[in-house]
């Protein structure tokens, strides 16, 4: 917000003379190791219990071309190995057992993002283009985002549009009877507003609506329907809505900051979800900052989800993908940051645990594929 520079200078009235500042120039790198816990043998019927491990490298470079234009370049490379839940079969007592993919999957993904921003008085516009490629998936996408400050410099409206054109070409399609190639599109619009509440608090609220069309099934997953093993089959349209609120409160006693984020989500597959994140960023001396955090997510399942279907459902859609199940997840996060001048180092850890019994509402079915994971990260950035 444009008034912030004036405030740091401590000059009353200066904010009226200052335009919105261009983004901070800089270079940033982040390494993330993501490690899913192996499926317990008691829930495994067949396949490899060792699940995904992913190493990701992210780079971001922000460069102001002149007073108005800013170029942003982002690059992501990730390497994945492990097995993935395939389908669920009940044992003689009706207990769900997971069949995992047999062989270890190895895959790489590369993503390039380019952004061009224009900062002009109280407005900022940015267009973005992106490309993501992996062995069996390709996405080309573009976006526009704009923001405008209110006359008093204490509020800001934001608006965004994006479109993505994705192609799916599953591996070993002929061998496993998967679809050979398919496409999906997604269009999204968002609207937001942020407001300084007082000298210690700021809030933001916003709404995004996305429409996905095309092949939205997972080509690698199967479902037991009656006595037959059939490919995952989902509707070819999904409309989803997310309402998000973020709040930051500075604490004068400790000089720390309370960070609260909440999102309500619902979509046309009858999924509703609540996600709440709470963190407390506390400086330790001049250069260090420690941020413990907690995240809670709860969702009710899609109306065509079940671990398996004893009879063929009327609507002809079915999925046993655990991500569409009713469940809740708690994650515990800790981050330590060191900053001196323009240089910043940050290390973070997260443990994520999901269980049917953690769901806020809805009936959690027996879903053995629910995932627990560790995430460790190390980041470095420098302001240029």
């Amino acid at each position, binding site marked *: 917000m444009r*008034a*912030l*520079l*004036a*405030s*740091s200078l401590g*000059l009353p009235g*200066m*904010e009226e003379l200052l335009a919105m500042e261009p983004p901070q120039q800089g270079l*940033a790198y982040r390494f*993330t190791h993501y490690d899913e816990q192996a499926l317990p043998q008691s829930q495994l019927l067949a396949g490899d219990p060792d699940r995904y491990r992913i190493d990701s490298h*992210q780079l971001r470079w922000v460069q102001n071309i002149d007073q108005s234009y800013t170029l942003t370049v*982002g690059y992501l490379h990730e390497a994945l190995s492990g097995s993935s839940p395939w389908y669920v079969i009940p044992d003689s007592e009706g207990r769900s057992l997971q069949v995992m993919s047999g062989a270890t999957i190895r895959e790489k993904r590369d993503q390039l*993002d380019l952004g061009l921003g224009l900062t002009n008085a109280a407005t900022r516009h940015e267009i973005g283009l*992106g490309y993501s490629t992996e062995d069996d*998936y390709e*996405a*080309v996408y573009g976006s526009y985002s704009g923001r405008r400050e209110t006359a008093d410099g*204490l509020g800001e409206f934001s608006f965004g549009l*994006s479109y*993505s054109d*994705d192609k*799916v070409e599953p591996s070993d399609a002929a061998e496993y009877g998967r679809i050979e190639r398919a496409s*999906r599109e997604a269009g*999204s619009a*968002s609207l*937001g*507003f*942020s407001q*300084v*509440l007082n*000298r210690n608090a*700021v*809030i933001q*609220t*916003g*709404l*995004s609506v996305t429409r996905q069309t095309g092949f939205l099934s997972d080509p690698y997953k199967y479902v037991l329907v009656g006595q037959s093993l059939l490919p995952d089959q989902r509707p070819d349209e999904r*409309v*989803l809505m*997310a309402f998000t609120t*973020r709040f*930051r409160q*500075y604490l004068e006693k400790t000089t720390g*900051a309370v960070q609260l984020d909440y*999102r309500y*989500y619902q979509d046309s*597959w*009858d999924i*509703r*979800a609540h996600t709440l994140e709470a963190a407390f*960023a506390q*400086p330790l001396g001049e250069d260090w900052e420690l941020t413990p955090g907690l995240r809670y*997510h709860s*969702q009710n399942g899609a109306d065509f989800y079940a671990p398996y279907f004893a009879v063929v459902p009327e*609507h002809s859609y079915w999925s046993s993908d655990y991500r*569409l199940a009713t469940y809740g997840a708690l994650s515990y996060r800790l981050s330590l940051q060191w*900053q001196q001048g323009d240089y910043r180092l*940050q290390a973070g850890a997260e443990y994520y645990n999901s269980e049917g019994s953690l769901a806020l509402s809805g009936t959690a079915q027996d879903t053995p594929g629910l995932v627990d994971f560790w995430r460790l*990260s190390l980041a470095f950035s420098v302001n240029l």
Partner: protein
Amino acid sequence: MRLLNCNHPEAIRRMVISLAMLGLLVACAPVQPWERGRLALTRMSLEGDALLEAMDEHVYSSKEAASGGIEAAGGGCGCN
């Protein structure tokens, strides 16, 4: 199959809470420019670290049914 159901009582309740929150925003007191230094601190930022935000969105939207935030969405991936 049900599309977005705005007649759902829970949805209406949330809408009312949202409107009340907006009312609160409109009613907030002015803050003088020299009182805004704390709001410029990194830990008070609403958007956070760009790479961490992007990775969070990527991980959670790959492992949960929900996705989306205040910003418009990016591209998909074949994450399964």
